[in-house]
C-alpha cells in the first residue's frame, strides 16, 4: 500500500495542542463540550453493553468525536444528514439529547426511533438527521438523492453522508461520486478514515490509504484534514459547505482518525484486528481530539483545568439521571412490530 497520508496516519505524530489562532472561547467551548458529551455518552453505552444492560451491538466512535462536531458547526437543521453503523456522534453533534439516545439503545419507546431501531438505526429529522443504518454505504446514494431534491426545490440545503474508509469499497459510493458531480448536487461526502473496516487495516484492503484520490478521479473539490483537530475540521468544512450552498456542486472532506475501542462493543479488539496493536492504540490515544483542544484553550488561558472538571461532573451527573430514566422507560407496545411497516393501512384505528 502507498502511505499517501504520511504523518496523518502515523500514530506517533500530531499529538500536540491544536491551533486555535483567531478563535474565541465562544466558538471553542461549544465544540469542546459537544465532544466531551459524545465521549461520555459513548462510555456510558460501553459500560451498559459490558454489564449486559444493552442487548444489541454498539459501534462506538470514541476517539473520533472531532469529526461530527467540527462538521456540524456548519450544518443547519434543514440539511439532509445520513449516517451509518457508527453514528452516535453524528446525531449527538446535531442534537445533544443523550437521554433519547440511551432510550433508543435500550429499545425504549422514548428513543430517537421510538425503540424500533436501537444503536444502529437512529433518526431525528427535526435536527436534520435523516437516518443511520448498518448496511455499509447504504445511505450514501440516499443522501445524494436528498441533495438533488434540495437543488430541485431551489433551497440552499445540502445532503451529507458520513462514509467510512471501508464503505468506500462498495461500488455504490463510486456511482454516487460520479452522479453527484454530473448533477452538480449540493452534497458533502464526509470520509471518516479510521484506517480500519472491522478487523482489517486499510493497507490490506486498498492500494493507497488516502481516500481523497477518488475525489480527484471524479473532479470533486476536496480537503484532507487531521480528523482529531476539531478546529481545522470546522474551518475546512465551512469553506466546502459555503461553496456547496452557493451552488458549486459536491465536495469531499477526508478526516483521518482512529477508533479506540474495537469494531463493536467495548473491547479494544487487538486480538481480532489484523494489524491493530496495543502500541498503536496507546499512541492514537495521545492524539486525543478532546485533550488537544482543551490543552490549546488552557495554554491560551481562556479555559482552565477546574472548569473542565466542573463540566465533566455536570455532564456525568445529567447522564446518570438520563440513563436511569431511560432504563425505567416503557418498551414499545406489542403492536409496534406491525404498526410501522407502512405509512398507514386500512385497518388502522
Amino acid at each position, binding site marked *: 500500500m502507498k502511505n499517501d497520508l504520511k504523518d496523518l496516519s502515523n500514530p506517533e505524530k500530531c499529538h500536540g495542542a491544536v491551533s486555535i489562532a483567531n478563535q474565541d472561547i465562544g466558538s471553542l467551548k461549544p465544540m469542546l463540550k459537544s465532544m466531551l458529551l459524545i465521549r461520555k455518552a459513548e462510555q456510558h453505552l460501553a459500560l451498559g453493553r459490558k454489564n449486559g444492560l444493552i*442487548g*444489541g*451491538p454498539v459501534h462506538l466512535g470514541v476517539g473520533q468525536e472531532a469529526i461530527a462536531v467540527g462538521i456540524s458547526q456548519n450544518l443547519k437543521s434543514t440539511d439532509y444528514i445520513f449516517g451509518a453503523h457508527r453514528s452516535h456522534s453524528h446525531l449527538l453533534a446535531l442534537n445533544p439529547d443523550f437521554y433519547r439516545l440511551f432510550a433508543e439503545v435500550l*429499545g*425504549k419507546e422514548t428513543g430517537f426511533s421510538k*425503540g*424500533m*431501531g*436501537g444503536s*444502529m*438505526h437512529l433518526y431525528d429529522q427535526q435536527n436534520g438527521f435523516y437516518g443511520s*443504518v*448498518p*448496511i*455499509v*454505504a*447504504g445511505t450514501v446514494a440516499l443522501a445524494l438523492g436528498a441533495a438533488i431534491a434540495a437543488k430541485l426545490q431551489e433551497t440552499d440545503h445540502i445532503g451529507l453522508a458520513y462514509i467510512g474508509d*471501508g*464503505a468506500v*469499497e*462498495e*461500488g*455504490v459510493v463510486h456511482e454516487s461520486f460520479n452522479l453527484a458531480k454530473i448533477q452538480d448536487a449540493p452534497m458533502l461526502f464526509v470520509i471518516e478514515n479510521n484506517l480500519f*473496516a*472491522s*478487523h*482489517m487495516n486499510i493497507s*490490506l*484492503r*486498498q492500494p493507497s490509504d488516502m481516500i481523497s484520490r477518488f475525489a480527484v478521479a471524479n473532479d470533486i473539490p476536496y480537503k484532507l484534514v487531521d480528523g482529531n483537530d476539531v478546529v481545522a475540521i470546522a474551518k475546512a468544512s465551512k469553506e466546502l459547505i459555503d461553496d456547496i450552498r452557493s451552488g458549486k456542486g459536491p465536495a469531499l472532506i477526508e478526516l483521518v482518525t482512529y477508533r479506540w475501542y474495537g469494531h463493536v462493543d467495548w473491547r479494544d479488539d487487538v486480538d*481480532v*484486528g*489484523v494489524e491493530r496493536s496495543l502500541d498503536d492504540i496507546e499512541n492514537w490515544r495521545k492524539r486525543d481530539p478532546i485533550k488537544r483542544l482543551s490543552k490549546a484553550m488552557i495554554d491560551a488561558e481562556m479555559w482552565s483545568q477546574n472548569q473542565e472538571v466542573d463540566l465533566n461532573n455536570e455532564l456525568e451527573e445529567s447522564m446518570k439521571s438520563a440513563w436511569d430514566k431511560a432504563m425505567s422507560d416503557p*418498551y*414499545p407496545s*406489542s403492536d*409496534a*412490530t*406491525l404498526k*410501522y*411497516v407502512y405509512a398507514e393501512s386500512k385497518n388502522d384505528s
Partner: protein
Amino acid sequence: MTVKKHNYGTAILAAFEYLLEKYPEVFVIGQGLWSPWYVGNSMTDLDKKFGIKRIIDTPVSESACTGAAVGASLAGMKPIVVHPRMDFMLYAIDPIVNQAAKWSHMFGGQAHPGATIRCIINRGGEQGAQHSQALHAWFAHVPGLRVVMPSTVSDARDLLIASVLCKDPVMYIDDRWLYEQEDDLSPVVELDLLSQRPMITQDGSDITIVSSGHTSLLAREAAKQLDSKNISAEVIDIRILNPLDADVIINSVKKTRRFLVIDSGWLSGGFSAEIIAKVLEKLPVDSLLIPPVRMALPDAPAPTSRVLEKDYYISTNDIVKRATDLF
C-alpha cells in the same frame, strides 16, 4: 454420555478443510476470513492452514467479490464466496441472479458457473431489520440457482461439499442459530447434490411437519414434546429448496392427513406457500382432515427492542401449541 465430536459450526469447517485439501481448484473469498469471528467457529484458522492466497479476505465489496467468484468458476476454479450475513449479500444480487443463475441457459448449456455462495442467516441479539433476514424464498424463486439449507450437523458438512462439487451455482444457507447442535460425523462420502431431496428426520403418523434450516431444529424439538402428548409427528427437513422435489412430503401428507409448514422467512409470498402448493396440487381435494397451516414470521421487518424481538421469532413452544390445536 457419549462425547460428540462435532457441532454444526465445526462440521462446516470440516467441509472447508476436506475441500481445500482434496481439490486445488477450491478457494474461498469473502469478508472476515483472516479473523473469522463473524462466522462462529466455522472457518477458524483456514487462512493459516491453507494460506492467504486461497483464503482471501476482501475489501467491503460484496458485488465484486461475488462476481469474481462466478467468473473464476467459468475459468475452471471451484470458488466459495462467503457472506457473513445474507443481508450484506444484497449488494451482489446481479452476479447471482442475472449472471450465475442464467449463464448455462443463455449460452445453450455450454458453460456452467459452479460457484458456491455461502451466506449466513444471522439474527437476534437486537440487531434489527438489516441484520436478520432469511431470504431463501427469494432465491429459491430463481431457476438456475440451486438453494440448499442444511439443518443437521452432518448436512452442514456434507451438503457444503456437495454444493461445491456441483457444476451449477449453489446458494448454501446456514443459520447461526444452528451452530450449537452437536453430533458425531462419519467419514466423508461425497454426495451428489442432484440426488438429495427432503428427508424424513422423524417418522410419524398423525401430522406432517415440514420445515427448513433453523425451523427444522425447532420442529425436531417440537416433535419430541408432541410425542409425550401422544401426537405422532412426521418431521421432514426440506434441505434442498430449489429445485424442490416434493414427493417425500406428498407421500407423508397422504398418510398423516394433517399438514403444518414452518418457515424462518416471512409469511406472505414465502416458502411455506410453495410447499403447500406443491403438495396440495398433487392430492385429491379431500386428502386433508383440516386445512394446512403455515407458521412463519409476521409480515414486518425484524424489530430491535427485546420485547418485540422475543415475540417476532417462532419458538418450539409455538410449534407445539399450534400442532396440538390441530387435533
